[in-house]
């Protein structure tokens, strides 16, 4: 079983297409929608976790690319600016996914981009503006 966390960028003409339905029906994938957003210019962004057989997942991704959807990996969407972070850990109890975590006993704070669901909760919680969303 393979799992991918992705951001699907829908251009305006695809916003009304049943893309997730096709992914589920045609490729036998599990699609978990983490977040959705439609911009004022009617473009859509869908944050999803897709899981299924590796071959099916790859086929599904090819289908999305053929449709004209830009697919990004989630890890690129949220960034921790290392030089701003003081490793206090204030964000850690707020982060729901475990992407921000404390290593014990050194108490260093790590950021695991692949676990992040880009919920943005850490952005106002960080006093040093270390967490930025490039969404």
């Amino acid at each position, binding site marked *: 079983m393979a799992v991918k966390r992705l951001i699907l960028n829908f251009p305006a003409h695809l916003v009304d297409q049943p893309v997730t339905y096709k992914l589920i029906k045609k490729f036998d994938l599990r699609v978990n929608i983490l977040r959705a957003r439609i911009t004022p210019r009617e473009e859509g962004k869908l944050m999803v976790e897709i899981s299924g057989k590796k071959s099916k997942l790859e086929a599904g991704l090819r289908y999305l690319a053929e449709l004209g959807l830009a697919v990004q990996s989630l890890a690129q969407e949220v960034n921790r600016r290392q030089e701003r972070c*003081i*490793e*206090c*850990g*204030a*964000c*850690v*109890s*707020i982060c729901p996914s475990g992407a921000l975590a*404390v290593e*014990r*006993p*050194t*108490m*260093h*704070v790590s950021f695991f981009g692949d676990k992040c669901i880009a919920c943005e909760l850490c952005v*106002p*919680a960080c*006093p*040093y*503006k270390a967490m930025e969303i490039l969404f």
Partner: protein
Amino acid sequence: MAKTIREINEKIKHGKAVVVDAEEVIEMVRQKGIKQAATEVDVVTTGTFAPMCSSGAYFNTGHSRPRIKLGGGRVTLNDVPAYTGFAAVDLFLGSTALPEDDPRNRIYPGKFAYGGAHVIEDLVAGKDVRLVAQAYGTDCYPRRGLDSWIRLEDMNEAVLFNMRNAYQNYNVAVNLSDRVIHTYMGLLQPGMRNATYCSAGQLSPLMNDPYYRTIGMGTAIFLGGGVGYIVGSGTQHNPTVPRGENGVPRMGAGTLCVMGNLKQMSSRWLRGASFTGYGTTLAVGIGVPIPILDEEVLRFASVQDADIFAQVVDYSEAYPNCNPISLGEVSYAQLKSGSISVRGKKVKTAGLSSYARAKEIATILREWILNGRFFLTESSVSLPSVDSGIQFRPLTERPVQNRATPMGLQRLGVDSSI
């Protein structure tokens, strides 16, 4: 076997001093025992890096030509107002000062993106800051306005002066209400879903010398990346609170007033912070060396997180109303584990004080001493301790009855009702 600071400095000079940090010393004492370790160790270094609101800096900008008297006038640095109630070109900038046009909490919760603390960080980073001044003009200081870029290196003096830093212990904050609250202890989720704390515990300076035996006025310290000094006890210094058997206060107690030349400091160790819904503040890095004069000093300096306790306080009701009720006591070992138990409920914890950076400061200070770059100073006056009889006072309000009395008449002692 007792040692003196002078003897320790001799050893530092000859590269023979044994220096460990306040974390390493715990293991060392466990292995060798207090007696043996006290003969071996000369200095224990401590550290803390956390938001400390009562921080600020004073500056002498140099005189303009023609001269201007900023004293009694208005000055902003990058739009943040500075205090001018001094001589011609002396200024004080506080870390929580905000630009006039910052919306503050009018759009709740406010972002507080930039304030006095950020100006201090920018200056220390070597950046240009815009100085705008309005003055009233005098015969000797005729100029009335100024709008100029200024840098730290251009100023005559730039001194960090923090009237309260390095709190000896602090509250653990929770929120018992049913709405999110935004505090200086960070975002607190309703129904006690998280707890925040703010101390480096076993690494924190005053936790390691709980009765201030070696720390006092004149003690040289690591401050903001440079060398600074303890000026005395800080504001709200309150040594008479309840303590554990190990002497460590079980709640906020002693504080330090510190100063140091801003020009030697670095923005890695002085950092502007924005607390959503609360305001701006300065994260300050401080490290205090503790000379191991005898076994007792070492016993104090080898305190560990499991033996340091703090009180859990509700920041939705109890704290704002100045109602000192504790919901329970927890140790720093529990706090650092990631969750504590309060009234039978498991609560996730997060620190505001960076333990990782505190350790780094203690390590840097250790290196400075080992390399003979930093010597210990004898303190000239001790900080008030448990026998000082200090009482922490709330404000006794004496409301003004006749609000209609104009201030001018009041000052003259004239009764306006005549």
